[in-house]
C-alpha cells in the first residue's frame, strides 16, 4: 500500500488532471468487460503497462508487484472453471475444451481489468480523485470522511507497525499463543489510541476555526481536453482492433 501511494504521489503524471487518468482507466475497464477478451485483453494489458511504465514512469517491478496479488487469486480460482464435476454416474471430474476456453477468457479479461485499476492507483493519489466524486454529487460529509480515513490510515498503519516491532523486540511473536495474545493487545491499544487521537484532533481543528465542515482549497490542475480526447480515440481504436481480430478480419 505504501509503495502504491508513494508512486501515486511522485510519478511523472502526478500533476495531470485526475480526469485525464480516470477517464481512460474507466474506458479501458469497460472495454475489457464487454469486448472479446482473447484479442482485446492483451491489447489492453499492453497499453496500460506501456502508459504506466513508459508514460508515468512507474517501475515495471512495482506494476508487476501490484498485479501479482490479484493474479494469484486468479490462478487459484480459474482451474475450477476448466473442470466440471459430474454426479450422474458416481463422481467424475471432466476437463472440457469449452471449460478451458472459458478459463482462459476469464483470466485474460480479469488481468486486463485489474491492469486498468493498477494504472489508475499508481498514477493518481486518492486525494486527487475524491474531488471528482464531489462533481458527481457525492455529499460533502462522505467526501470529508473518505479524506480523513485516508489521512488516518497511514497514521495508524505506522503505529501498528511500530507497535508490532516493539512487541517483537520483547519476543511477543515467538509462539503462536503469545502471537495471538500480542496481536489482541495491539489491536485494543490501537482502538484506544484512535479514540484519543480523534479527541485531540478535535481540539486541533477547533483551534483553526472548525465549524463542522472540513473545507480546503481545491488542487489547481487544468484539464487538457486534447489529452482526454486522444485517450478516448485510442480506447476506440483498441476496441475496434480487438473486435476485428476476434472476427478474423485482421
Amino acid at each position: 500500500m505504501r509503495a502504491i501511494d508513494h508512486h501515486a504521489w511522485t510519478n511523472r503524471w502526478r500533476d495531470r488532471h485526475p480526469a485525464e487518468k480516470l477517464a481512460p482507466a474507466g474506458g479501458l475497464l469497460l472495454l475489457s468487460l464487454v469486448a472479446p477478451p482473447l484479442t482485446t485483453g492483451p491489447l489492453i494489458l499492453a497499453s496500460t503497462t506501456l502508459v504506466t511504465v513508459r508514460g508515468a514512469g512507474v517501475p515495471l517491478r512495482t506494476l508487476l508487484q501490484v498485479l501479482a496479488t490479484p493474479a494469484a487469486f486468479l490462478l487459484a480460482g480459474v482451474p475450477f472453471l476448466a473442470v466440471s464435476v459430474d454426479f450422474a454416474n458416481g463422481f467424475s471430474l471432466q476437463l472440457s475444451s469449452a471449460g478451458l476456453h472459458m478459463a482462459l477468457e476469464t483470466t485474460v479479461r480479469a488481468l486486463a481489468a485489474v491492469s486498468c485499476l493498477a494504472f489508475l492507483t499508481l498514477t493518481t493519489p486518492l486525494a486527487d480523485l475524491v474531488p471528482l466524486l464531489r462533481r458527481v454529487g457525492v455529499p460533502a460529509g462522505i467526501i470529508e470522511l473518505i479524506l480523513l480515513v485516508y489521512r488516518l490510515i497511514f497514521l495508524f498503519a505506522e503505529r501498528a507497525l511500530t507497535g508490532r516491532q516493539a512487541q517483537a523486540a520483547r519476543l511477543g511473536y515467538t509462539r503462536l499463543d503469545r502471537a495471538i495474545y500480542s496481536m489482541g493487545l495491539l489491536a485494543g491499544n490501537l482502538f484506544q489510541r484512535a479514540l484519543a487521537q480523534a479527541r485531540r484532533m478535535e481540539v486541533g481543528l477547533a483551534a483553526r476555526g472548525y465549524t463542522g465542515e472540513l473545507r480546503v482549497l481545491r488542487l489547481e490542475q487544468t484539464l487538457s481536453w486534447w489529452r482526454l480526447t486522444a485517450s478516448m480515440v485510442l480506447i476506440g481504436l483498441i476496441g475496434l482492433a480487438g473486435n476485428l481480430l476476434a472476427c478474423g478480419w485482421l
Partner: protein
Amino acid sequence: MSPPPLLAVRRLEYAYPGGIVALHGLDLTIERGRKLAILGPNGSGKTTLLLHLNGTLRPGGGEILLDGRAVAYDRRVLDQWRRRVGLVLQDPEDQLFAATVGQDVSFGPLNLGLSEAEARQRVGEALTALDIASLADRATHNLSFGQKKRAAIAGILAMRPEILVLDEPTAGLDPQGVNQLLEALQQLHEAGTTLVFSTHDVELAYGWADQVAVFHDGTVLAQGDPDAVLGDRALLRQAHLQPPLLLELAQLLEAGQGEPGWPQPRSREALLARLRERLRDRSA
C-alpha cells in the same frame, strides 16, 4: 494608565473530570510583542494552561481577560478569540488532517471566510514564512516529523493570529530543525506577532525568550525578565529546574569583577566572545 495586556489570566482554577487538580490560582500576563516562555517540567500542567488560552478548556474558577475584558464562551466570542489567539499543539499529527500540505494550511483561512484567492495567498505566505513552500503539493503523511511540525505551525500562521501559542515547539526536533524553527519564529516576532511557548528547556527559554514564567504544580511561581527569574536558584529548585548553563558560566566569569557593566551573554556565541575577551585581558 497603561493599556491592558493583550491576554491575561487571573486566579485560574482547573480540575480535570475525576477531580485531578491541574491549575490552581494561576496568574499570567501576556503583553503585546513579547516572546514569553512558560517553563516547567513535564506533566506540570503547561498544556492544560495553553488549552485555556484559546478557550478550548473552560476554567473552573478565575478569569481570562482579552484586551482587559473578561471573555465569554459562546460561539461568537470563541470564534473571535481563536482568530486572535492561534494555538499550535505539540503533536502535529493532532492538527494535520488534509491530504496535501497546501490544502491543510488552507483550512484555517477558509474558515475565516476568505475567498479562495485570498486563502491561496495566505497559504503561500505561511509556507514561505516557515521555509516549506516547496512542500505545498506533497502528501501530508509523507513528511518528516520536522516538516510536519512546520506545516502545523503554517496552518495556524495562515490565520494571522495576534498571539501565536506553541506547545513545546522544539520537542522532537534535531538541532538544525530547532534553529530553523527559531529563525522562522524570530521573523514573526519582528513582524509584530506575540509569541507564547511552553518548554522544559531552560537553555532555550533563557537564550530566546524576552520574558519567562516559571510554572510549577499548577501555578506560576514567577514571571519576569529571564536574567532575574532564572538567576533565582531557590525558585528554580522549587520548580525542579536547573539554572541555565550560560547564566551560571557568565556569573562565574563576573565573580570578583564587581558590578557587571554589560548585559549577560544570552547565546553560545556571545558567551564565547566574552570568554575570549577575558582570556586576552588576562594574558595581556
